[in-house]
């Protein structure tokens, strides 16, 4: 900043008495501010400077509710969207028992107690049907 009481680079003429007097009064008035106002100005300055020294608190103020919200959202997702179970339904079991392609993946025979007895009676028919259904008709 250029000194007010010196000639400025862009101002080649010396200060006029009016300018000098105005500046003199201005600085006197600024220095003679009453103590109460000066104290308030100092307090305002300290407050402004301290506002930058607490960025961590400011971040923490946002992190805590954000973290809480994330935890609640995760809990809600676990309640409403349970993990998928690796249990197939009985109908799928029945079909997979007769499907030759599935049979390779499921070596255990179907449970006799839970399976429809008619399935065993016509096991050859279902096997033939499954084999022909997997090949679409050409006509």
């Amino acid at each position, binding site marked *: *900043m*250029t*000194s*007010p*009481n*010196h000639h*400025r*680079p*862009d*101002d080649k003429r010396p200060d006029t*008495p*009016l*300018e000098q*007097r*105005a*500046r003199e*009064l*201005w*600085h*006197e*008035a*600024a*220095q*003679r*501010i*009453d103590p109460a*106002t*000066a104290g*308030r*100005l*100092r307090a*305002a*300055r300290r*407050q*402004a*400077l301290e*506002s*930058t020294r607490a960025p961590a608190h400011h971040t923490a103020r946002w992190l805590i509710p954000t973290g809480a919200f994330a935890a609640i959202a995760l809990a809600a997702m676990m309640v409403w969207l349970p993990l998928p179970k690796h249990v197939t339904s009985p109908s799928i079991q029945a079909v997979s028992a007769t499907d030759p392609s599935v049979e390779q993946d499921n070596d255990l025979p179907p449970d006799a107690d839970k399976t429809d007895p008619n399935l065993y009676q016509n096991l050859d028919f279902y096997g033939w049907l499954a084999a022909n259904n997997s090949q679409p008709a050409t006509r």
Partner: protein
Amino acid sequence: MNSMVSTLDAGMLNDDVRETPATLDAFLAQVERRAFRMAELQLRHREDAMDAVQDAMLRLVKHYRDKPAAEWPPLFWGILRRRVVDLQRRRKVRSIVVGWLGGGRDDDGGELPTWEPADPSPGPLERLRDVQSYADMAAAVRQLPQRQREAFMLRMLEGLDVAETARAMGCSEGSVKTHLSRAMHHLRDQLEDWR
């Protein structure tokens, strides 16, 4: 101790000839009183002036603390100038609202003066040795149009150079020179006794 006191006094009396301090704390300490005077002169209200200075300090620290120290003066005075203008606009809006509500005219239909907030606290000017001179100058400066007043205060009283004044005022350097020239012309007429 004596040397410390004399150093302090010298610093207080001649802070206008110092370079911009390297720390924000020192810079704000250097300008806070003059900033208050500038806001007070334009707003004519001590509490509003205090609010304006405080807000300018907060904004400078918050947004521009990482800027080079040489850029702080135009930034700070620019922020303060905008804050003063904001407060003046709010006051004007309040005056208009009061006028709409019928508060702008007296019983005889005469127009009441523009609404000004009450300021009961005693002004520090009473304690100044050159009370009358400062009061005359302040009155003359207040009569200037807004932009001329800003140019005069920033350029002549605060001592910013033309480029810094232009930056603080948000206009070109040519405009600053024009406003300043007109301001000086008006003030010379107003302050004939100072010649």
